[in-house]
């Protein structure tokens, strides 16, 4: 499922965008420890295409997508948020 999320991101001087923190609706924040890969990619699971950030969050690996100017994640319906 496609779930749009609120993200705090940094724009560096070269124009790169790096996500720093995911802000969940219920007020919880999940800082991104490290971005290990950035590439253009489609998400067949969520249905969309954009820039895919492979992120390490609390030792979990998670894809975050930036599609035009909205961020989304691929959310398994069974998975608990975060």
């Amino acid at each position: 499922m496609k779930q749009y999320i609120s993200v705090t991101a940094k724009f560096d001087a070269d124009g790169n965008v790096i996500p720093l923190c995911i802000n969940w609706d219920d007020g919880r924040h999940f800082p991104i420890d490290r971005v290990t890969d950035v590439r253009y990619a489609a998400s067949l699971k969520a249905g969309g295409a954009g820039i895919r950030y492979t992120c390490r969050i609390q030792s979990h690996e998670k894809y975050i997508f930036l599609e035009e100017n909205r961020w989304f994640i691929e959310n398994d319906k069974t998975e608990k948020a975060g």
Partner: protein
Amino acid sequence: MRTILHSDCNGFYASVECLYNPDIRNKPVAVGGDADKRHGIILAKNEPAKAYHIKTGEAIWQARQKCPDLVVVPPHFDRYMRFSRMCRRIYSDYTDRIENFGLDEAWLDVSGNDADGEAIAHEIRNRIKSELGITVSIGVSFNKIFAKLGSDYKKPDAVTVISRENFREIVWPLPAEDLLYVGRSTKRKLNRLGVYTIGELAAFPLPALRSNFGKWGDVLYTFSNGYDNSPVMHADESSAIKSIGNSTTAVRDLENNEDVKMIFMVLCDSVCRRLREQGAKAGVVAISVRDKDLYSFTRQKKLFSATDITGEILDTAMLLFRENYDWKKSIRSLGVNVSDLSPADSPTQMTLLLDERRRERMEQLDRSLDGLKRRFGSFCVRPATLMKDPVLSAFNPKEEHVIHPVGYF
């Protein structure tokens, strides 16, 4: 030797819609126009829908008869434009000679000392699949015509190489109508001459082709023999526009000249604004008319003096219509097209027969209206006539349709 790729996005609109709706991905899906506005035809379909022999251009109800479970989704043109741009971004990693052919097709010239066209084609195919989530089929050849045949040869998600060594085996057995620009009427003429395949066309004596098809004979001969050497346009060359047109299917059938004038007013407004944006004037106005039984025809007229004045083009369209329509049947759709374009600032011979001072005032009026419409939208200033039937005239061809099919020449 040149290495030309032709990349074709498979069922483009439908593929993009399926990417965005995971739930319908494995069902037969078609993208269709708005049936309530009577634009209810199939614009594109995915692979499962193809198995039901659903054709682009047929009515949605016809398609439903073939496949009752067909999922019909409305089009999202902004999405298709975005995906087209993303394709182009990928192509531009391999060459700066990219020539788009509509939104979903492009030629790429990847010629070079050690260009391995097939390897590049596979790389592009894989990247589009992973980065965009849709599939392409790519033809690799030594000219644009065979490259295009190659992209049609095997799909989806495939690469076909047509080389100087194998084109006789691959291309020549194909039916003549697979060749670019062999349409229904050319096919019929060729069949009458006993020509059914591209190979038979290639073997046909050139003088005989010329006497049957005029200068098209040369084109057919060149295309079928693989002699086409037209270049792939450079990425930053935009092709000179040869004509500008808009057409629409009205929300209800048109019954009289007044209805027709309303539709032409809206169409001419859009065509002329686009004409002025291009800084061009038109020498020829053409109209297309389709009646409720889907019989259609076109008529055109050369203008006395090239113009970009909305009023003059509208008057010409109406004149053409009045001269050529007898109102035995009501009308379903109308189109206006202008061609023989010349730069608006080219010097022109003034004429004693037209009131040039009035024309200048009309030009200024158009320019002021353009400014208002640009700032406040197409509906901010409208002729009072259009208020007679606000529903009929409530369409906006300038913004609603930005996708214009292109010609090869």
